[in-house]
């Protein structure tokens, strides 16, 4: 069934996550009400990798795109406002933390629940940036948060 495309696939494959999970899936059945729901979906995805060789400027630009383009509206609004406030002044370490926070979790809702403290933040994501995000989500200044901001704040000619 597989044609001689195998060699070509090796050349053409540019899949960022190139590790293949080599485990079979074990499905844990959760019962409504009684046993706890399985907290983790069994199929492992390729692990997230930090990008190397990226200058800080490029990293900021990439993280801007990745903050604005999320899976659901709540995160689009929250993270693009957060990026407007903090992204351009983050240190290298903070940028790395933020990169991991918004790119590694596979369920966008989780990031939302951690930021709003509906669920506890896993240890690997705890840190300065997570604290900043939680603080930001509280909206102590009660600013109107009806939509993601426009990009013009980045226009240097303004």
């Amino acid at each position, binding site marked *: *069934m*597989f044609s001689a*495309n195998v060699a*070509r*696939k090796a*050349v*053409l494959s*540019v*899949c960022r*996550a190139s590790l*293949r*999970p080599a485990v079979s*899936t074990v*499905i844990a*059945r*959760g*019962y*409504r*009400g*009684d046993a706890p*729901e399985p907290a983790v*979906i*069994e*199929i*492992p*995805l390729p692990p997230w990798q930090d990008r190397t*060789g990226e200058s800080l*400027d*490029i990293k900021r*630009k*990439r993280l*801007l*795109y990745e903050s604005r*383009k*999320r*899976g*659901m*509206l*709540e*995160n*689009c609004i*929250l993270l693009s406002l957060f990026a407007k406030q903090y992204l351009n002044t983050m240190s290298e370490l903070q940028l790395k933390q933020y990169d991991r926070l918004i*790119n590694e979790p*596979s*369920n*966008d*809702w989780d990031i*939302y*629940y951690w930021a*709003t403290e*509906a669920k506890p933040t896993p240890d690997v994501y705890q840190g300065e940036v997570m604290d900043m995000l939680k603080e930001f*989500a509280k*909206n102590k200044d009660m600013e109107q*948060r009806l*939509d*993601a901001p*426009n*990009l*013009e704040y*980045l226009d240097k000619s303004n």
Partner: protein
Amino acid sequence: MAAVCAASRVLGRKIVSSTALPAVCQTSNRKLHFSIYGKRGDAKVSDAISTQYPVVDHEFDAVVVGAGGAGLRAAFGLSEAGFNTACVTKLFPTRSHTVAAQGGINAALGNMEEDDWRWHFYDTVKGSDWLGDQDAIHYMTEQAPAAVVELENFGMPFSRTEEGRIYQRAFGGQSLKFGKGGQAHRCCCVADRTGHSLLHTLYGRSLRYDTSYFVEYFALDLLMEDGECKGVIALCMEDGSIHRFRAKNTVIATGGYGRTFFSCTSAHTSTGDGNAMVTRAGLPCQDLEFVQFHPTGIYGAGCLITEGCRGEGGILINSEGERFMERYAPNAKDLASRDVVSRSMTIEIREGRGVGPDKDHVYLQLHHLPPQQLAAHLPGISETAMIFAGVDVTKEPIPVLPTVHYNMGGIPTNYKGQVITHKDGEDMVVPGLYACGEAGCASVHGANRLGANSLLDLVVFGRACALTIAEINTPGEKLSPLKPNAGEASVANLDKIRFADGSTRTSEIRLNMQKTMQSHAAVFRTGDVLKEGCDKMDSVYKSLDDIKTFDRGIVWNTDLVETLELQNLMLNAVQTIVGAEARKESRGAHAREDFKDRVDEYDYTKPLQGQVKKPLEQHWRKHTLSYVDPKTGKVTLEYRPVIDNSLNAEDCAAIPPAIRSY
């Protein structure tokens, strides 16, 4: 000139494609160079302003654009069948808008009570207000149980009953015994993260079959030649290179275009890219005027409160504390079809029984439900209500308003997922092109979609595209030749936008479009308001010629991407509003105050005896096909008949049209 440029650009790198002829674009006087040579691995990342767009050619058996539920299912199905498949997506797969889906998947498994897929078929046909194609609906509802079981076998952890079978909850518009047996419980879910679970499962599976993912590549256009689709051209955001994905089969699964409206529940990524690509290729889009307004979007931000709340017992109340849905839909009440609920809410507001200081919305009450039930089955609701509405759901009701949520229309396909056009009264397949998911219009949702049918639509038609491709192609087939400068116009457009220096900013034009659509093409539509909207949209479209962007780079240029998305949104918006203005009837989600009734080939409110059947030109039970001239924004409309027969009349009798009440 061309030869000099070519000579200076041929580098000693591996050329993936056999063509090596550079082409110089003559249309712009900015000396745009469009060359083809291989560039792999050691790409230099540079943000320098350059007029050079290095192009990389790839060859695959199939390319899927979009990595949401439908795209992943198609990519996985194709890879499993042995096809060398590429999946081009502007987002990481698990960040597609499918992840927002919290409702579930409808399937007549019969775990909660006796059920039959033919009842689901009836519900869907009725829900579509008889604009859905019954062959496609037959296909979807019959395949539904098998599709859910297949997902379960892939490892998707559905919520279960005490006996260990898949738990199914109630959802709007679902009934038993052809509407006579009461509420059906056929929505299967994974707590409130069905969408995420679906993506995670399918993405994981597809990787085991060697699908090649091109993540954060923005698809610009289809590569069409002689009416056949030969692939896709895309921009790699990471390094600004252009990629042409040549393939005999292209599947479009790019989702909806909610962002044409000011208030919508969609993420900012729902920009109708696939619909626009098809429009620019000269092909029609179908039924774009049918935009679903979800009854319960949070007033203000627009964030969605899932229908599952009402499925779990939540109710809508007006300023008098009355459960008003009992008046509008005595049987289904708050779980009537979404368009019925949206219209009821709008009528309540217009008649002065709205809540809030401006009396311009209504309340969704959940605090009468036990807190454990809310926590277990609807956990996300509490957070969203608190953050965006400042409300504690265990004590107060949530302010809600009908908000744009889903696009029933899209790229017209047959029930196998093949894109079609309509010429001389016949449906004709466009070779090499397929569409599925919200971007496709098979049409299973017709004039109105039932809740929890969308995730089902994704998996069934994603799989259908893969099956159809596998049926008529073999892996490793030689590709037909492609012109060396195919895709040049797309790159010229990209270049033009990148250096655009007009007088109106992208964000201003976008806001103009959104506000126009919101005021002129909302839940209730009237002739003169729509006409005014069409004229306004025409001038907003033309203002694109004078657009101003500020980021001149090519690497991770969000301004550029959002402007390309705006161009795509604009094409969707003009087709939506012009189609709405032309359709002089009310059907499903398209409600006109000046034409309150459905206009079918017979008057179904009276007995059919003695009635003369109207020809297609004199009634509205037909699909709209819209074309746009991208240069001027002028929309042309044509129509095609609805498919009224099911796939197999003995297996499943088609449902003749009737009056739709709940």
